[in-house]
């Protein structure tokens, strides 16, 4: 008989007023007992709707059954069949739109905590399991990967397991992509990412950091150096600004800059040289995961008041439900249906306020969401000293402008078929570089698919 508790087994968390002053992980993870209890809420539906909601089709009821039995290693092996980064996905997937969004338990009450269970299993495995990774015998073929984000790393891992000699080129000084420069420590401990990267290295993947492809070697030159195929997982890192007055004032950041200074360059840790302005009143513009992360980082860096300024309503907020909830608990103030029109500066050119206008929702637009319209004469000033622009990113043009025959659409996204093949022979692409800013799991899925396609492509040529 299944456990019919209407709510998910509670997740232990740091107290909001404690955690908003530190960078340690917010959610502390299930104990074995809690995991088993939550696992018994699964009905093991024959048609597995949850699985259809997961972009990589994790064998959800199967792994949950193993958790209920207490066979945590078995559960891990079940997940690992289709997901190579469960410790990451369990933490950052927008489960409410994916696996859990399809769970039948969710119709009347809360869905099964699939993400929490996945995280538990992955963490348990990291702590107890043995990951004796054996370097597979080489098949003598070389593949290059551009970008060490979830797409590139997944593609690299899968190819290495098939025996390919894989080299990953990463522009930054560390591997992980958004997982290390964007998503903060309190949501995804960097040690987890580092472990995944170390595992790849044990598989024989060579990771070359400090290599900006297109500047140092181009994709065409990688082929000349003997690589038989190239996978591009360069992400969507180009930040947008609003083009409103005052964006060059001191105290205006892109979320990318703000988060990079804090996460990658560790401005929050003593001993690191990275400077960051001391802010008291911060406005973060936007409503996605990036905005939530920037706002919660600002709070942790000591800001007294932090606003999320978003032009639509709570319903349209694109961030993960859990992040919005956590942000609210931590005291972030949501200024919904508001849009900035101008950033104000003092006589020293520093941000001293932001003029906003109230919005109302009109007819649905192309995205299907109701279009926000400014209310005439509703302008008001928000008292802030820092503004963080978090209104979206697009793919960096560096690769497409330096590679012959590689085509992109009007948004700058690389054109790729379902199997990852781009318009250039031997070049495959996936993740945010193709879709525009999306999710970790979709990037991983694309990396997996491309690895398959690359294998078929290289074999077909031999």
């Amino acid at each position, binding site marked *: 008989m299944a456990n019919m508790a209407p709510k998910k087994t509670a997740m232990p968390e740091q107290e909001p007023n404690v955690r908003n002053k530190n960078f340690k992980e917010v959610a502390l993870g299930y104990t074995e007992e809690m995991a088993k209890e939550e696992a018994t809420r699964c009905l093991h539906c024959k048609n597995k709707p949850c699985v259809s909601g997961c972009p990589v089709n994790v064998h959800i009821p199967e792994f949950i059954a193993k958790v209920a039995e207490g066979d945590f290693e078995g559960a891990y092996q079940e997940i690992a069949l289709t997901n190579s980064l469960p410790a990451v996905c369990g933490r950052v997937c927008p489960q409410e739109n994916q696996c859990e969004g399809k769970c039948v338990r969710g119709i009347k009450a809360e869905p099964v905590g699939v993400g929490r269970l996945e995280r538990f299993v992955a963490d348990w495995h990291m702590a107890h399991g043995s990951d004796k990774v054996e370097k597979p015998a080489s098949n003598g073929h070389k593949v290059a990967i551009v970008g060490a984000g979830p797409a590139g790393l997944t593609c690299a891992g899968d190819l290495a397991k098939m025996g390919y000699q894989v080299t990953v080129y990463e522009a930054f000084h560390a591997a992980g992509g958004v997982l290390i420069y964007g998503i903060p420590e309190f949501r995804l401990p960097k040690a987890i990412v580092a472990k995944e990267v170390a595992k790849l290295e044990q598989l024989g993947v060579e990771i070359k950091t400090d*290599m900006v492809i297109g500047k140092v070697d181009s994709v065409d030159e990688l082929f000349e150096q003997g690589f038989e195929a190239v996978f591009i997982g360069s992400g969507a890192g180009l930040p947008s600004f609003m083009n409103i007055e005052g964006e060059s004032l001191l105290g205006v950041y892109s979320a990318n800059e703000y988060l990079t*200074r804090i996460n990658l360059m560790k401005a929050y840790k003593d001993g690191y040289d990275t*400077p960051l302005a001391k802010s008291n009143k911060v406005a973060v513009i936007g409503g996605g995961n990036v905005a939530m992360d920037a706002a919660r980082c600002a709070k942790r860096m000591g800001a007294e008041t932090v606003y999320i300024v978003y032009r639509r309503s709570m319903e349209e907020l694109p961030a993960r439900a859990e992040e919005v909830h956590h942000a609210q608990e931590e005291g972030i103030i949501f200024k919904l249906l508001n849009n900035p029109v101008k950033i104000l500066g003092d006589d020293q050119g520093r941000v001293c306020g932001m003029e906003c206008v109230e919005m109302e929702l009109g007819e649905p637009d192309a995205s299907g969401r109701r279009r926000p319209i400014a209310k005439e004469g509703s302008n008001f000033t928000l008292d802030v000293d820092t503004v963080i622009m978090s209104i979206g990113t697009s793919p960096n043009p560096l690769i497409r402008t330096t590679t012959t025959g590689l085509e992109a659409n009007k948004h700058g996204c690389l054109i790729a078929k379902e199997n990852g093949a781009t318009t250039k022979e031997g070049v495959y692409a996936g993740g945010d570089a193709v879709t525009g800013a999306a999710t970790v799991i979709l990037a991983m899925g694309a990396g997996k698919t491309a690895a398959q396609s690359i294998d078929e492509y290289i074999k077909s040529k031999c």
Partner: protein
Amino acid sequence: MYKIVTKRELNDTVTLMEIEAPHIARKAKAGQFIIFRVDEQGERVPLTIADYDTEKGTVTIIFQIVGASTKLLNTLNAGDSILDFVGPLGVPTHIDPEAKRVCVIGGGVGNAIAYPQAKALHNAGIQVDMIAGFRSKDIVILEDEMRAVTDNLYMMTDDGTYGEKGLVTDKLKQLIEAGNHYDLVVAIGPVIMMKFVAATTKPHNIKTLVSLNPIMIDGTGMCGGCRVRVGGKMKFACVDGPDFDGHEVDFDELMHRNSFYKEQEATARDHECRLLKGGNQNG
């Protein structure tokens, strides 16, 4: 890790290093830059590629010791290594193939950045005049190197202790008014100097290239920290530059943005323009 092959102190505050980075040396062109990080705790700091040697596989950097990271770098010696060295970044300087005569202007450590440009122009068969400005005799750098790649080299010092006394713009005005015709002026140095060079050439309609040095992090177009206003539009200096049309650049905004992380007013002339005090740091 990237090995320091040679280290030479050009004066009390300016050091030259050759760094082993064959993959960058192979690709580098005049006008491009690298980003270095000394160690795990270090900042990412941009420096122009002052020279490169494809055979030795080295890249030369010349830096002024102004703050924490350049100080730290200067504590290292030949044989030591630094953790990160990324490049070549930015767009190489574009020289109009029609140009016949160019005036290159360097200010202070900016001469180290102007020198490879002068060399590239000279090697392309273009007549190069160079005006090299320094505060005073004891900080003159690279004179022999500059002389070797220029047709006329005018040394200027603020205090008259070496070469002629005066500002680089005084000399430029004098040369233009004396009827010298330049197809292009390239100015590299403190922002304030570049601003006044651009103002000097504007009435004569001489195309003027300046090399901008906003604060940077990634150098690949991903943070927007290096944004500058050129011709009224927002540009990212690391990918759209660092060279821009001097008549289009908003220099005041640049000076202002560069002062953001400044703790106290710098005493060096190179910083006298950055009047803002009290930029607070907390990390």
